[in-house]
């Protein structure tokens, strides 16, 4: 029995009208609660308002400023219910990037509407977005800029939602998900998510922002699978811990950056997490210390990690106990076949590093190839987003750092994760990012951007000596820059490009 979003929300509200659908917080952090009946009514009103203004003969989309607030959640649900393509946008997007994104939308949609905070759709000028700024312009015409996750030839005719991607590269891209979204009890949520302790009707805390892919899809699944959703309006680690305890949260999805900051909280009490059935982390590589910290906190059976490209090429899943047996793995393919190929396209033996290709049943036998230049495919249906890694004999995948993240010091490859972990090991250091700094003879050397703990003080020489006790000489940072905070994308991925421009501006100190 496959249902429309509108019908599904109405059904859930009818079955359990007084159960809590949403908990949010206003700017004074006052709790706001909506029951399923109230939520369904608000969604129906907003969907009606949207349908009333949208011209059925013009390809239209609606932009929802998607902070983790009740209006944003209702706006997204209303657009899905009205079957108008929805673009959840970071409300804090800088003007230039915002213009670029709206310009991309303008290429595909004749009319754009902005859902205001009163849930009234306002006509907006997508053309005002004009072209992406310099830097993004170089690839602006490529299909990679605006890719269908799995769209057919008429892929932009029916779009359920659009998401901005490419945050870690600084070049705005939008990917479109074919629609309309439907509720299928056998497929909502997907089988892989159901393997991670997910329970229908559960209480879920959403920590990451709704304009990012992972929290957004967790919200859609929650919506269709009658969850109670608590929306954390901004990330503060002690608040996350408090919300989990106060609302007896059962399911939680975090990024490694969230995980790291939560672990840093003093007096972290495992009893405060007793209600959690699972914590799932996605989006970025997780360092081993952070992973172990969470396995210690929750026990290995409640820690899950998902590795999968946003483009839907395939996924791997690993539970904490499997990870302890094979530290560093991102798990086995889940309904996904994995092949590691060398540069000539031939399979490499287990244990050998190559390019990771994956194949999923969603793509088998379908005519709608992913229309993205960033994705390479093989004649027999395997695709890659370019990640490198190796498989062990039992099919567990281990990823290498992405090429653009590896720091090449005179031919020696340095994994920034290793340098960052060594730096974070110092008692004065709260966070760190390692980047390549151009060097006359070596090509590049390692530079470190370091965030100190409040009140802490440390000399650069001491940090270098500290690294020297843990790392080979070429891996020791040769430049240290103290910064207030690490620039991270919504997904928790370090935005190294923002730090790189730091250097160009001469902000670095040797």
């Amino acid at each position, binding site marked *: 029995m496959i249902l429309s979003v509108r019908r599904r929300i109405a059904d859930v509200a009818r079955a359990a009208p007084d159960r809590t659908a949403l908990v949010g917080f206003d700017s004074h952090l006052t709790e706001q609660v909506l029951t399923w009946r109230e939520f369904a009514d608000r969604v129906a009103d907003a969907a009606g308002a949207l349908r009333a203004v949208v011209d059925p003969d013009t390809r239209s989309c609606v932009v929802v400023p998607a902070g983790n607030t009740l209006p944003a959640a209702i706006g997204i649900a209303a657009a899905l219910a009205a079957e108008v393509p929805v673009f959840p946008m970071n409300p804090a997007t800088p003007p230039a990037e915002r213009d670029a994104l709206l310009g991309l939308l303008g290429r595909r949609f004749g009319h754009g509407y902005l859902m205001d905070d009163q849930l009234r759709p306002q006509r907006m000028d997508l053309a005002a977005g004009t072209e992406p700024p310099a830097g993004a312009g170089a690839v602006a015409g490529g299909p990679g800029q605006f890719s269908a996750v799995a769209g057919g030839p008429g892929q932009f005719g029916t779009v359920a939602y659009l998401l901005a991607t490419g945050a870690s590269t600084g070049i705005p891209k939008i990917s479109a998900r074919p629609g309309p979204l439907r509720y299928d009890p056998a497929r909502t949520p997907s089988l892989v998510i159901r393997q991670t302790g997910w329970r229908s009707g559960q209480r879920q805390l959403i920590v990451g922002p709704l304009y990012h892919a992972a929290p957004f899809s967790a919200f859609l699944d929650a919506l269709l699978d009658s969850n109670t959703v608590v929306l954390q309006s901004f990330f503060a680690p002690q608040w996350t811990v408090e919300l989990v305890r106060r609302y007896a949260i059962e399911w939680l999805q975090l990024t490694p950056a969230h995980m790291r900051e939560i672990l840093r909280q003093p007096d972290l009490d495992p009893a405060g997490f007793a209600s959690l059935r699972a914590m799932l982390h996605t989006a970025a590589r997780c360092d081993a210390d952070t992973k172990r910290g969470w396995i210690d906190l929750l026990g290995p059976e409640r820690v899950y990690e998902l590795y999968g490209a946003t483009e839907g090429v395939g996924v791997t899943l690993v539970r904490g106990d499997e990870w302890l047996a094979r530290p560093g793995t991102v798990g086995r393919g889940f*309904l996904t076949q994995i092949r590691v190929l060398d540069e000539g396209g031939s399979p490499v033996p287990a244990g050998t590093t190559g390019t990771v290709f994956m194949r999923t049943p969603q793509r088998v036998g379908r005519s709608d190839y992913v229309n993205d230049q960033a994705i390479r495919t093989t004649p027999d249906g395997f695709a890659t987003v370019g990640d490198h890694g190796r498989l062990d004999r039992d*099919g567990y995948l281990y990823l290498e750092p992405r090429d653009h993240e590896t720091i090449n010091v005179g031919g020696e490859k340095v994994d920034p994760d290793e340098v960052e972990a060594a730096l974070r090991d110092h008692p004065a250091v709260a966070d760190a990012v390692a980047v390549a700094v151009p060097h006359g003879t070596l090509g590049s050397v390692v530079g470190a951007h370091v965030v100190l703990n409040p009140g802490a003080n440390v000399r650069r020489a001491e940090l270098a000596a500290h690294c020297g006790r843990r790392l080979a000489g070429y891996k020791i940072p040769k430049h240290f820059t103290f910064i207030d905070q690490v620039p991270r994308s919504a997904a928790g991925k370090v935005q190294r490009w923002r730090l790189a421009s730091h250097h160009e501006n001469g902000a670095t100190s040797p």
Partner: protein
Amino acid sequence: MVTLPEISEVLSAHPGVRRAETTIVRHDGRDVAIAAAELSEYVSGPILRNHVRRELGEDSGLAGVLIVEHMPMADGAVDGECLASTLAEAVAEGRCILFEDPRDEVERRVAAIWSAQMDVRSVGVNDDFLELGGDSLSVLGIIAAIETEFGRSLDVYEFMSAASVRRLAEILR
């Protein structure tokens, strides 16, 4: 009796296939008909094989389809000799799965469950679940049916690790 050109013709008419060629390969002391297919969009070997079996009958004799990047050509025509050796090599190395009937009762029952849950008529015991068109829905259906019929509960990982009727039957025996 179905001829090799008839098989190639049916394959070539498939919307995902750019061109196809069928030949006889010696394997395990017998002659088997194997096709090579060059694709315009991805379709798996077992799905193409089943397409032929559906069009020409289960007894059409096509044992397997190998997906090739480019059909070997010589003088503007398919290089039959080169193709035959490519196919023989792929079969010998296990890169081209051959259709094989169940050899005992357990395999027969597992294959019947796959067939019903995936809505696929011909299930070879070595066919890969995903290549045969399996998805998250059929995983759940098969796991439930196996639990009912064999009284053995499987988790998704166990099922996926097995991936073929033969290996799944080994777990259940």
